[in-house]
């Protein structure tokens, strides 16, 4: 096997990808980006920026997961670097990845293009699924099966699931991005996308091996997290060839090791050897990893073709949350806390019994005792200080606030064995203390896979020129 030297002669028999960060909005290391561009001559800069990890709130509320300023700086660094180098960038952006998020990202790109005075032509691909389209699919006999056998999810997606969902997105595969790359553009920005789709689009377009393309993508997708020491704000470089690929870290402060790379293939995946993707299954159980200098050379992945499916994600509205953060240091109250909580629960249920037709739910999260592990907690020692997080969810914000407020007052003045203080049982860290309105609560109700005849079908591609023309009222 002939090994290419990073930074050496470039050939069309290889494809060079730089993953600039673990997640767009986590931070892009500018020095590493400069090194990657100057020394290693990438064909494309890639970064993922959509995920369901932060939970259903972001898809439901339409808010960005990442701080806007960091997202803007990351995008600006990537866009400028790729424009100067005259290579495309491919990123997904906006967290949950629906159109409401993508539109905010378009605004950010417009600001960048004005502030940096650069003209851009970008293909923007929506990851949002039109509900009417999805319902017509179901009506015409398409069955979308749940991906995980969890009782919350319908076995097959129903029209009711679709209607109840606030927003639905799908993880696009590489095909819509490949299609977008046919245009004369500076780069591609997608809404919700499969992370590896961003990294496999160019290799597949150029005819590289599917198994190797997906395997390399799987390693590059989280940027510097796959290196040692891992970093969420640094990049990783991959060079794909005919029968193998190599990965390394441009930043001399960290390196790719056999251990770090294999460890990363396990990360956040239920099965370390097999992963289902649209149109096939990647099997890396017989992959070979060889550490040479500061690189890891990888080969041996297999691709087993399967039906073309995309993963649908949707969230439904649950209610509104109100919380109270209550600190307790009194040793007698700590000793009696289980009794006190059961007494207060009884009082709440009695007091609010006239609202029995309304939805509300409350939990006491006792930090210092068992808030994190619940019934799996095995540590029995007594804490000297605890925090009770009163967590209320109800059908209106007003009701949630009222219940949280009632509970915090009750907790503040309740009696317990050994009580010496009669002026208040809890320390509120700040004002407002009794209740804090947190806002809407959502949960995933769609986590299904839909078979497609045409991988492009639900994903709309637009080419947008920046700066966008000002809208004259």
């Amino acid at each position, binding site marked *: 096997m002939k090994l290419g030297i990073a930074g050496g002669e470039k050939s069309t028999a290889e494809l060079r990808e730089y993953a600039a960060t673990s997640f767009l909005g986590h931070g892009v290391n500018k020095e590493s980006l400069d090194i990657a561009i100057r020394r290693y001559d990438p064909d494309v800069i890639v970064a993922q920026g959509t995920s*369901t*990890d*932060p*939970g*259903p709130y972001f898809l439901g509320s339409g808010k960005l997961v990442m701080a806007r300023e960091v997202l803007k700086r990351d995008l600006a660094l990537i866009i400028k670097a790729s424009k100067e180098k005259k290579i495309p960038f491919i990123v997904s952006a906006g967290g949950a990845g629906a159109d409401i998020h993508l539109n905010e990202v378009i605004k950010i790109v417009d600001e960048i293009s004005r502030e940096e005075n650069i003209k851009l032509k970008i293909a923007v691909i929506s990851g949002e699924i039109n509900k009417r389209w999805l319902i017509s699919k179901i009506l015409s006999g398409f069955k979308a099966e749940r*991906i*995980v*056998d*969890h009782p*919350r*999810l319908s076995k097959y997606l129903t029209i009711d699931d679709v209607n109840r969902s606030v927003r639905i997105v799908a993880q696009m595969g590489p095909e819509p991005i490949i299609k977008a790359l046919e245009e004369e553009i500076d780069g591609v920005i997608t809404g919700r996308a499969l992370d590896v789709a961003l990294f496999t689009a160019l290799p597949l377009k150029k005819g590289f091996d599917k198994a190797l393309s997906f395997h390399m993508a799987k390693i590059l997708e989280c940027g510097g997290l796959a290196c040692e020491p891992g970093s969420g704000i640094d990049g990783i470089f991959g060079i794909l060839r005919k029968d193998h690929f190599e990965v390394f870290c441009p930043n001399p402060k960290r390196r790719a090791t*056999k*251990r770090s790379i*294999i*460890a990363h293939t*396990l*990360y*956040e*995946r*239920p*099965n*370390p*050897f097999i992963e289902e993707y649209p149109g096939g299954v990647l099997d890396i159980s017989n992959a070979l*990893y060889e550490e040479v200098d500061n690189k890891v050379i990888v080969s041996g992945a297999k691709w087993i073709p399967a039906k073309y499916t995309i993963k649908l994600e949707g969230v439904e509205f*649950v209610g509104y949350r109100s919380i109270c953060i209550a600190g307790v240091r009194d040793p007698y109250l700590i000793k009696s806390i289980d009794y006190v909580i059961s007494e207060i629960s009884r009082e709440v249920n009695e007091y609010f019994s006239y609202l029995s037709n309304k939805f509300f*739910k409350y*939990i006491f*999260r006792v930090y210092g005792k068992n*808030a*994190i*592990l*619940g*019934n*799996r907690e*095995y540590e029995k020692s007594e804490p000297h200080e605890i925090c009770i997080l009163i*967590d209320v*969810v109800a059908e209106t914000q007003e009701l949630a606030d009222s219940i949280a407020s009632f509970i915090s007052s009750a907790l503040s003045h309740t009696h317990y064995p050994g009580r010496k203080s009669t002026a208040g049982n809890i320390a509120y860290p700040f004002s407002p203390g009794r209740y804090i309105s947190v806002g809407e*609560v*959502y*949960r*995933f109700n769609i*986590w299904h896979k839909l078979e497609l005849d045409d991988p492009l079908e639900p994903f709309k591609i637009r080419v947008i020129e920046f700066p966008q023309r000002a809208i004259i009222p």
Partner: protein
Amino acid sequence: MSRVIKLKDIASIIRSKNASPFILTIDIFIDDKEIYEYIKRSNIINPREIAEIYKLPIENILGIYYVDQVNAIKISILRDVAADDLESSDIYSAQQYIPLLDLELKILYEQ
């Protein structure tokens, strides 16, 4: 002859994370190849044991995998309470490996 060791004393990394809101996955990297091989061979980390620790029916243990190249054990669990349920306490499942730290493993030695 036998020796009882705790998982935290033989693993350099023990971590947990969501693989979707409905699946919890735990990665354990064992330092010593011999101990790793022993654990794998003896099957002392098994679905019954994990189900008991996580207070779940045994069917919820989706798989226990061994990745020989890095001495890693992966345990994937179908959650009863999903990460985004109101009763859930850990949206990324980042602290759900804790019950395994003090897991005691009995290592038998050949005479």
